[in-house]
């Protein structure tokens, strides 16, 4: 078992003929992810990835023809909100949006419409999710993983890879690794993913990678104290970040003394979660918690 994506995933890629879309679709296919369709308006009837994937003009057509049940979006920021709405409109229940730089007010409407439709959104501005040896959706490099008992959820992209690599190097494998995105408005939060990991029988331990800004980590800590009985380890990026400055991610800003790495660390520790000083310490903390 795993969460979000697996062997039964039938993936549609929106923006499959673009540079990034094509590059990463190829990597997803090589990993074994079942990509059943691509979508680029005006390129319907063509095929992508050396003839292996049919391309459609609309998501509705792609769903009708291929039974796609998940979508991964690589289209540029100005078109991405509409791409998410189109996917939800066509009945796709799970949508990953990799695109960064989407205006927050656009996301506000998208968030609520998708929720009303019952579609789960991961991202935007996220690296996607990989269920190890099953399916990879997004841009997380496939070779950093090893199959095992640890679920990982993160707000970052490359920092996620760093932690996964450290775990794999230490012989600690993963069930699913998911990046929820660094924007102020994202479709799924830590608690959504933590509750899925909590329910997943194969996930025996959970790693959470947070960063400065907002209070998602604090809320997640309170949830974990109440609901999660699996061993956990965490890392929070941004201890040296100055207040009032947006550290790349639109969400990563310390404002009015709130959202500091220290307040997050304290909240996590109060919930009984071990917090690392460096990503390299995560495997040791998991081992100390009895994870094999």
């Amino acid at each position: 078992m795993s969460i979000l994506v697996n062997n039964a995933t039938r993936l549609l890629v929106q923006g499959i003929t673009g540079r990034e879309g094509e590059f990463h679709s190829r990597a997803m296919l090589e990993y074994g992810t079942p990509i059943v369709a691509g979508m680029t308006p005006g390129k319907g009837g063509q095929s992508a990835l050396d003839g292996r994937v049919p391309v459609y003009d609309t998501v509705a057509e792609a769903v009708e023809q291929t039974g796609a049940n998940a979508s991964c979006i690589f289209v540029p920021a100005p078109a991405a909100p509409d791409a998410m709405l189109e996917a939800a409109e066509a009945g796709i229940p799970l949508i990953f949006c990799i695109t960064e730089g989407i205006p927050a007010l656009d996301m506000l409407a998208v968030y609520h419409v998708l929720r009303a439709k019952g579609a789960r959104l991961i991202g935007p501005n996220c690296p996607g999710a990989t269920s190890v040896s099953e399916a990879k959706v997004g841009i997380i490099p496939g070779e950093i993983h090893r199959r095992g008992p640890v679920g990982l959820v993160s707000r970052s992209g490359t920092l996620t890879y760093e932690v996964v690599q450290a775990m794999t190097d230490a012989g600690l494998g993963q069930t699913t690794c998911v990046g929820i995105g660094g924007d102020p408005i994202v479709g799924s939060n830590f608690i959504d993913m933590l509750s899925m990991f909590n329910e997943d029988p194969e996930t025996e331990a959970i790693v959470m990678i947070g960063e400065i800004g907002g209070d998602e980590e604090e809320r997640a800590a309170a949830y974990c104290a109440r609901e999660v009985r699996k061993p956990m380890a965490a890392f929070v990026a941004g201890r040296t970040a100055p207040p009032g400055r947006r550290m790349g991610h639109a969400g990563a800003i310390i404002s009015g003394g709130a959202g500091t790495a220290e307040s997050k660390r304290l909240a996590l520790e109060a919930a009984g979660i071990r917090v690392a000083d460096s990503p390299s310490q995560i495997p040791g903390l998991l081992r100390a918690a009895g994870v094999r």
Partner: protein
Amino acid sequence: MKLQEYRSKEILARHGVALLDGIVASTPAEARAAAERIGSPVVVKAQVLVGGRGKAGGVKLAATPAEAEARAAEIIGLVIKGVTVRTLLVVPAAEIAKEYYLGLILDRAAKAVTVIASADGGVEIEETAKTNPGAILRLPLHPLIGLREHNVRRVAFFLGLDPEQRRAFGPIMRGLYAAFMASDADLAEINPLVTTPGGELLALDAKIVLDDSALPRHPELEAMRDLAEEEPSEIAAREAGINFIKLDGNIGCMVNGAGLAMTTMDLVKLAGGEPANFLDIGGGAKADRVSTAFAIILDDPRVQAILVNIFGGITRGDEVARGIVEARASLQRTVPMVVRIVGTNSVEAADILRQANLITADSLDDAAAKAVAAALAEGGAA
């Protein structure tokens, strides 16, 4: 992006928010002329984006045009939290009966544009939130239908406005909301909103912070950017599509991804060093962008070593390695560089780096330690 007070007021006035028309001045003579035109006691206000300008002596009352000129001479050139005052706003002095706070923020937890209001105005709202949270109203607006009249009434009654003030409050609340939505703001606040002894409602100070992701569709707002108040290196970085924030240390950092960039800074600190900057070269970094990133980092003479940390994904490691080698060859000044490239095409990347005799590292902890050691050695040699 933060807008100056006079820019924020310009936007609010356009959306029908009641405020006292001010005049922008950049010399004492201009301040005097402004006061003459206004024809009453004025307040001379430093236009800086940092907080606490009142306490720093950047806001002063002047009874006459001559006094306005004198106060302006004192304020221009004043350094407030590292920022030199260049621009002033001269506004009519208002008599204040009571001060309120009125703001709109994008609340990420509520996933809604949210009204924040308090009858304790004139102070930092964060301070009120700590000392007297009951005095603050947080009202999330419906994300699809926005501000409605019942919302406006709720805020007005919460603030305890009398019937006449409630009538005047409508256009202010609606104007603030319209300005927020039209400019894709993260925050729009009036602090203080005041009532005068005559019962008038006026916005005395305003602040708008824009969503950087939406700036590409607002060229008219992008044009309001105050370049004088930004680090030249930060301006150059933005133009190159690089996320860069200057800090005070001596170890330059070049990283892909914001979370990993913050972590790299944290580990430099943990290894006993001080990061000189936050720098995220973003996804798919090309050789020319890497080259610009180096130039920006080395523009700071305090930088004595550079730590490059690239974890491949969207970014291809061999492209970055080639970019680093090429860029280093063309630099005016070089410092020791510790380079770590992992992930997509990292084998090719390592070959390229080794051939160019750069310091490589196996792990991030190792890279941070080597960069700190290299900076120490460089500092000792200099």
